């Protein structure tokens, strides 16, 4: 009916005093991939949530296939063929793939009204005398009564068909998945699935429900390079079938690779839509940020040469009793950034936490100077005067107390300290809030954290980038010698990300050793001096940033050994050495 599958017109949405979307227009054609680009808090997800019925717009209209619609709930969106794949998967871990799909299946609606109309047309009442009219009406009535019974029957049968699980659902789901060209084991439980499998399941789910408008919210954030390629090929296939696809992402290279057009949002407003062919990274960034941004990540050489942290044969078990970290050895030198690459869940978390003293160590040693800190309590590590900062992946669940304000969070590690003349900290029972506020103001100013207040607003209410800045700011204030950071830019927009990279580089120049657990290989290759690749808790190798490529790293992450990839070089080395 219409050229556009989705048209959003003049959409405005406010949350309290915050304008999340301001008069946003957006159209997607059928068989087109539209990338939605914008910084954190620019309203991308809000906009898509309105399309998928989670929020309702304050003003503006939504047109699907040229028809004006009101989407009140996700149910409505589903009926309109809109399927959203959220950043955080909405799956039930303990269910099988098929059951997760089965969960949302609805009965085919039995349109009684439509059938009645049909009856009316079969028994016309026009141009009849009174007796004939009465007869005709009786006929209508009897047919309609029968229809009512059959509708009831249909409902009951359908209820029994869907309410009780039978084995055929696995085959059905498998068949549908296969028809769409996916590789899915419908009997597998979600908790046993890898991230990319979960994502595939999410896509199959919305397709099974008959979606022809797909919305993907940061689908690539948790995938490896190879998985991303696979996802993109799926998306291209969907596009050929005539689906309209909207993809939200922070990663410009992906935007350029996959999309047909790009719509850029800035501060809740649509600042422009460009055909991807005419765009490049620089242009998109400028549109997003609103000013020129230097997109170069520096990797300076520093002259420090001191071993800060020496990890030897470290083995750590996870809660299930398997080795999450298996015989890992490496050194962290001062003035360098050591990257840790790997598919998520390959032991990065355990590695960081065991160094920070939060995870029990099974065997091996972690030497800081001459002291072995393996298996020590975090308080002991703090008390030993080891200036080490751990910036955890889970910012609000671990690094910060979400319901406390910025000032209170600043003293999370130092609240025990004595104040002024008190010789021992335990003699002074009070928390030093004055100092905390001063510190908070300093951090807010230095790192340009945007927050209305340091001692009224809970940290939880700040945006992702600002939360990370608060956390990083607090850790840097302690002048650490070692910084361990896990996914410091996850979920952050481009501007905040580069700000974080700058801060890390500044620390590196001061002679700090940084352990950087990351996911974006391009960034890691540009930022880190060396990259350690983990696969299932084992070190596959440590490569220098200027001697490796993204593809090599990707292969190593999936289990190919360093020696295998660098066969020739290893041989050469062997020759020269031998």
């Amino acid at each position, binding site marked *: 009916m219409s050229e556009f599958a989705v048209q959003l017109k003049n959409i405005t949405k406010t949350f*309290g005093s915050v304008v999340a979307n301001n008069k946003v227009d957006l159209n997607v054609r059928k068989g087109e991939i539209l990338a939605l680009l914008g910084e954190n808090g620019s309203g991308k997800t809000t906009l898509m949530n309105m399309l998928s019925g989670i929020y309702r717009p304050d003003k503006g209209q939504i047109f699907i296939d040229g028809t*004006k619609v009101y*989407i009140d709930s996700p149910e409505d969106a589903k009926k309109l063929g809109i399927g959203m794949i959220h950043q955080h998967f909405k799956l039930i871990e303990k269910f099988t793939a098929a059951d997760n799909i089965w969960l949302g299946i609805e009965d085919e609606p039995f349109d009684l009204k*439509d059938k009645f109309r049909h009856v*009316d047309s079969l028994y016309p009442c026009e141009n009849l005398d009174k007796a004939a009219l009465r007869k005709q009406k009786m006929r209508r009535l009897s047919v309609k009564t029968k229809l009512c019974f059959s509708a009831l029957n249909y409902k009951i049968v359908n209820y029994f068909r869907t309410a009780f699980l039978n084995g055929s659902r696995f085959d059905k789901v498998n068949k549908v998945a296969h028809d769409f060209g996916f590789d899915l084991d419908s009997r597998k439980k979600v908790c046993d699935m890898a991230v990319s499998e979960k994502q595939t399941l999410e896509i199959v789910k919305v397709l099974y429900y008959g979606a022809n408008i797909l919305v993907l919210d940061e689908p690539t954030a948790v995938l490896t390079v190879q998985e991303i390629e696979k996802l993109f090929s799926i998306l291209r296939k969907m596009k050929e079938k005539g689906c309209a696809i909207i993809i939200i992402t922070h990663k410009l290279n992906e935007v350029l690779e996959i999309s047909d057009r790009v719509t850029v949002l800035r501060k809740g407003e649509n600042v422009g839509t460009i055909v991807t062919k005419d765009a490049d990274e620089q242009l998109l960034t400028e549109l997003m940020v609103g000013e020129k941004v230097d997109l170069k990540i520096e990797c300076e050489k520093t002259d420090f040469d001191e071993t800060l942290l020496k990890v030897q044969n470290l083995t750590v078990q996870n809660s299930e009793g398997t080795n999450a970290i298996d015989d890992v050895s490496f050194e962290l030198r001062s003035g360098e950034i050591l990257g840790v690459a790997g598919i998520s869940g390959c032991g990065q978390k355990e590695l960081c936490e065991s160094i920070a003293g939060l995870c029990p160590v099974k065997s091996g040693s972690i030497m800081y100077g001459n002291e072995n800190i393996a298996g020590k309590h*975090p308080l002991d590590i703090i008390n030993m005067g080891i200036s080490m900062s751990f910036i955890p992946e889970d910012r609000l669940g671990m*690094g910060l*107390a979400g319901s*406390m304000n910025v000032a209170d969070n600043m003293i999370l590690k130092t609240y025990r300290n004595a104040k002024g003349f008190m010789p021992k900290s335990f003699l002074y029972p009070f928390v030093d809030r004055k100092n905390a506020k001063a510190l908070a103001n300093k951090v807010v100013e230095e790192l340009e954290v945007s927050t209305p207040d340091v001692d009224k607003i809970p940290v939880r209410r700040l945006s992702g980038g600002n939360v990370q800045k608060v956390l990083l700011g607090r850790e840097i204030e302690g002048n650490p010698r070692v910084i361990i950071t896990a996914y410091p830019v996850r979920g952050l927009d481009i501007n905040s990300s580069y700000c974080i990279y700058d801060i890390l580089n500044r620390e590196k120049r001061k002679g700090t050793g940084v352990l950087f657990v990351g996911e974006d290989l391009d960034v890691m290759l540009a930022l880190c001096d060396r990259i350690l690749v983990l696969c299932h808790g084992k070190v596959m190798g440590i490569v220098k940033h200027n001697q490796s490529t993204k593809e090599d790293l990707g292969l190593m992450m999936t289990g190919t050994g360093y020696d295998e990839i660098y066969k020739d070089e290893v041989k050469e080395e062997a020759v020269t050495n031998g």
Partner: protein
Amino acid sequence: MAEKDLTKKKQAPLIRITKRAHANKWFSIGIYVGAIVIALLIGAVLIASVKVDPFAFYQKMLTIGTIGNKFAYKNIENFIASFVPLLLTSLGLSLSFKMRFWNIGGEGQFIIGAITSAALAIAIDDALSPILMIIVMALGGGIAAGIYGLFTAVLKVKFGTNETLMTLMLNYIALYLLKYFQTRHGTDFFLNPNSARPIFNLLPENSWMITIGGIGRFSLNISLIFALVFTVFIYIYLNKTKHGYEICVVGDSKRTAQYAGMNVSKVILRTMFFSAFIIGMASAFHVSTTNTLSESITNDVGWTGIVVAWLARLNPIGVVIASLLISILQFGCVQACATYSAVDSNVADLLQGIILFIVLASDFFIRYKVNIDLSYFRRRKEQKAAPAFAEATAVSEPTSDVTSDNEVQAVICDANAESSDVTAAAVEEIKTEAFEQPEKSETVITADLPHSDTESEANAPAEEEKQDSDVIESTEKTDDSEKSEAEKSDTLKKTAKKTSTAKKTVSAKKETVAKPKQTTKKVSGSSAKAKTGGAKKAVKTAKEDK
């Protein structure tokens, strides 16, 4: 199909709920006060239903029966005696709630504290001076209750048990322990030796609560002073000290606390002990005030305390206000019920429930803003008036105009039933006209009128008036409803004529679309008499015209 359905049914909603950015402090207080007033009004209706003047009742209740009472001082003393345990218990509970440790074992801890302090009082008898005695009782009761609470915390820390279930079950153990002491079982430690029935003995005089006399016959229970001082202490403890800071962090996220190097287990054990300690102390004061144990010693403070703590948002100062409110409610209600025997004394519980319910519900208005979109009604009217047109433009099936069809049918049925004196032929005439008309108009529209419905809506009334004015001169003097009837039949007739002659202007076509809807509605709305009269006239004019 689904899309079409949605466009038909779904409208932008009347009420839309949005989140508030920041609730103004005074606004929230206003909402709470408003909620309490509403709750009291609902209570007033209930009280009035048993033929008691609710305002007199409330006056009695809110002044806790002091006005016009010779023994007003007694009332205040008793009120304080019931207020202090509630205040202290709520404080203790809010401490553990702050750590998100769901201690709902206030009842049990209170009973254990009471048993222990009573045992101490009986055992020590008159060996200590009254002041020391009360201190010993408070400490003893506190420590016993603390250990009772600590038990749950240890299990939680060691084995990760659910503290809610544990504390709940321990309530019953404590209660039945108390009941056991009230039976003749050999030791009879707590019982009155002079009584044949097992009743609790009066405690020795040295353990009686110290009061400060002075203001007439009223004497102040010193536990009130202690409780208020203690409130300030808890406020400082929670908000200013390192321990309070740790409680907040642990309550927020245990992982964060671990990360910050806190000993989470230690914090949980310490806080839980402290929380139960306060409750035990409250019970010691209570035992010393009432001078005896009893099965209903707790007066349900363990439960009510949970309500108070949540009403106060775990803020110690708020706890004072909330517990004061609840105490007045409970105590005042009992007093008022003594005067008005028609009202059951359980009304206090009822009112408390209503207040709590409404206050918690009013929370919604603090967190969210309710926007009412009044244009909804206008839109709905438009939508109702327009479906024939919308259908016609959207789909060109001949059967799609069912709604208008049905309406016309309904009208005819009406007319049939009510205007028996109208000749059958005339009715048939209207009927056929009515049936022909929508179909024709529909085809006309689909052919050459792809306008929006609102446009035709706007145009129609004006034209209607203009065209009607010259035809219906005779009906001008009749009343309004009759006139509208005449208009209706007129237009019906006219449109019928037009469709048959097939010589019409575009504007007239528009009219035909909008008319039948409006006119049919008018018919069903107006009185039967007017209807029959109008129908008659319509038929007449129609005949004349022909």
